[in-house]
């Protein structure tokens, strides 16, 4: 057993932290989020040049990382800065792509890692809630060409992708794991329409409507479910790490505020009721860190263990995230409610993370099922 990062990861962590400290203040973040695209192309290229995108993929995928530890290091730092650039869609779609295809993927991934192409995975649908096996979008074959029709909802990075990876049903019933296939779709293809939007916490996403759109089958027909599930496990780990980073900052900002804000002639940090609540927050964040380590350490374990620990981490990100978010706002009082003061944005992110890749209750049910 070993709970230390190796030297490469420590360096990656320091590099990224330093870069974000220098280039990604909360004001910059608001500026990027408020821009027309909702994020910064320039920053994205800088991240690529720093090797941060490459750190998410293994050497055989063309990157130089791709382990749980890499995801932990990168996304915790991104969470501390509330980075709005499309790391989550890149990880999610990149993971699927890398596993689904061999050489074709390598070519695409090379461009993704260099920052010149953007990916998104269009998988979720309005009727799916958080289940991964619910796919209504249909792909029908006609003379070797597949055509896709359906509706994909809240596709992270969906409005900006140069390549869309779209799941569709080639056989089986609506809620079956078998029968789902993956397709590469050109976002400019005929029949494709987008409704891009920003999320309430500042990230770019889109609804994607497919009306008889041409797609290129990648990977084995009907057998995409395990790939999608594995990619989501990586994305769950990533978003939990992001949440962990945001928790740390929300806690630190709150403790700082408690040291400076005076009421009744003393700093509010002297009020024992608040102290004990923050001590609990501290403990819970340590638990969150451990849950993330468990999920990371089991990313290459059996499917059952990987998913069990991923669900535990995501459930805990939901409960602890809520606790940290609420305490941070409440202890800040009015200041916590403002746009201007940073802490509220961390709270928002912490709550909304619960709506990505399955919420608290979804992963509770899943944890129970997997444990049976």
């Amino acid at each position, binding site marked *: 057993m070993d709970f230390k990062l190796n030297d490469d990861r420590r360096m990656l962590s320091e590099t990224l932290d330093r870069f974000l400290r220098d280039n990604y203040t909360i004001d910059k973040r608001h500026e990027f989020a408020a821009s027309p695209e909702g994020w910064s192309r320039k920053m994205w290229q800088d991240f690529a040049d720093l090797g941060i995108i490459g750190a998410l993929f293994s050497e055989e995928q063309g990157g130089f990382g791709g382990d749980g530890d890499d995801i932990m290091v990168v996304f915790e730092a991104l969470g501390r800065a509330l980075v709005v650039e499309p790391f989550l869609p890149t990880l999610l779609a990149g993971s699927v792509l890398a596993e689904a295809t061999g050489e074709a993927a390598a070519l695409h991934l090379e461009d993704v890692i260099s920052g010149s192409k953007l990916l998104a995975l269009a998988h*979720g649908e*309005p*009727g799916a*809630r*958080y*289940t991964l096996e619910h796919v209504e979008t249909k792909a029908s074959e006609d003379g070797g060409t597949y055509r896709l029709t359906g509706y994909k*909802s*809240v596709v992270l990075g969906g409005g900006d992708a140069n390549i869309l990876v779209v799941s569709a049903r080639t056989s089986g019933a609506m*809620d079956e794991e078998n029968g789902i296939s993956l397709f590469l779709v050109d976002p400019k293809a005929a029949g494709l329409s987008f*409704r891009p*939007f*920003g*999320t*309430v*916490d500042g*990230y770019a*996403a889109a*609804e994607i409507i497919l009306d008889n759109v041409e797609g290129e089958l990648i990977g084995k027909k009907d057998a995409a479910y395990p790939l999608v599930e594995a990619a989501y496990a990586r994305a769950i780990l990533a978003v939990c790490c992001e949440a962990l980073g945001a928790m740390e900052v929300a806690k630190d900002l709150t403790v700082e505020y408690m040291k400076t804000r*005076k*009421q*009744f*002639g003393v700093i509010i940090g002297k*009020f024992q*009721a*608040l102290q004990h609540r923050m001590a609990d927050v501290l403990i819970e964040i340590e638990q969150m860190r451990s849950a993330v380590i468990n999920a990371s350490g089991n990313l290459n374990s059996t499917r059952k263990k990987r998913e069990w620990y991923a669900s535990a981490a995501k459930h805990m990100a939901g409960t602890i995230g*809520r606790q940290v978010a*609420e305490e941070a*706002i*409440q202890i800040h*009082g*009015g200041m*916590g*409610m*403002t*746009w*201007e003061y940073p802490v*509220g*944005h961390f*709270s*928002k992110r912490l*709550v*909304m993370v*619960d*709506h*990505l890749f399955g*919420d*608290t*209750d979804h992963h*509770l*049910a899943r944890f129970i099922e997997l444990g049976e």
Partner: protein
Amino acid sequence: MNLELSEEDKAFQSEVKEFLETKLPGRIRDKVLLGKNLTREDIVEWQGILNKKGWLAPNWPEKYGGAKWTAVQNHLFDEASWQAGAPRTIPFGLNMLAPVLIKFGSEDQKQHYLPRILDGTDWWCQGYSEPGAGSDLASLKTSAVRDGDHYVVNGQKTWTTLGHYADWIFCLVRTSSEGKPQEGISFLLIDMKTPGVTVRPIILLDGCHEVNEVFFDNVKVPVANLVGEENMGWTYAKYLLTHERTGTANVGNSTAALARLKAIARQQMSKGKPLSRDPYFAARLAKVEMELEALKTTNLRILVEADSGAAAGPESSMLKVKGTIVRLEINDLARRAIGTYALPFVSEALEEGYNEQPIGPVYANAIASEHFNHRKMAIYAGSNEIQRGILTKTKLGL
């Protein structure tokens, strides 16, 4: 004991229901039910309708326009209004300033200001909190210095809700620095159009403009605008805290919100069943419903007792704490209920006249932003920590 409504109250309930069904404009109702932004005009319109019926200020003395409602009737009206999607009335003039004027104001002040509150001439806002004086309100610094027949006011107020709509502001100001901080505070009425008054918006974390900073730079206020005696403002402000309780527990608001949440949960599907039948969601819903059912009774017990002349007590602190916990929990369930569609936020869709198709279900757009906005409930009007402190002193004797 008896939980049944009297025949009289049942008749009142029907009257309220019919009034709301016939008089509440559908355009306004739809905005409220979908969490869209109300304009100043919307609110003034609705308050005018209520005023015409004589129901805008039911708890004022009859001679000023009150309706002599009992605690139960107040509760029934509150519940029915929320259920119907009526806007809340703006409490600053009606429920916060007016009781103080009626109890401590001069006859001239009553004759002048009260009718203008009712008929919508004056929109009031509240000037209590300051950057350095939130929970510790008594430490406020905005000063009013007597200069002939004026006070000269300097300082800053903050968290001024709808101050950008207001014609007038009632302020706690420091008129003396002698004795305890509470002893040098006065209650002053200030015309927002007076030179030297500046309103600056504070954007909340949901991106909305609702509260403001109000700056006073050598603002001249006639001495006639002092309410009651100089340096007695703290007493007047405290009087308010124990006076108006009907809405403290948020029972009407929560009941309506819960009903809407249940409707959403029946529509949302989870693994092939309505979400309302998902055991974990159903459990969350049931727990908050049990709490709310109990809170309704806690609320009525306290209101009826206060009505029967028992001393106004610290019970409103209980109502405030539990009321916000229940209300915020309902919001939390609402954002859970809509799943991934909690994420999209199209702020223009909150405005009147937005005609595009919504992203996701029509009820979803405002839910997350409202969730964040409502966190203020546990902070304003005495944070839940302040309320627990009051309970500690008064009910536990510690």
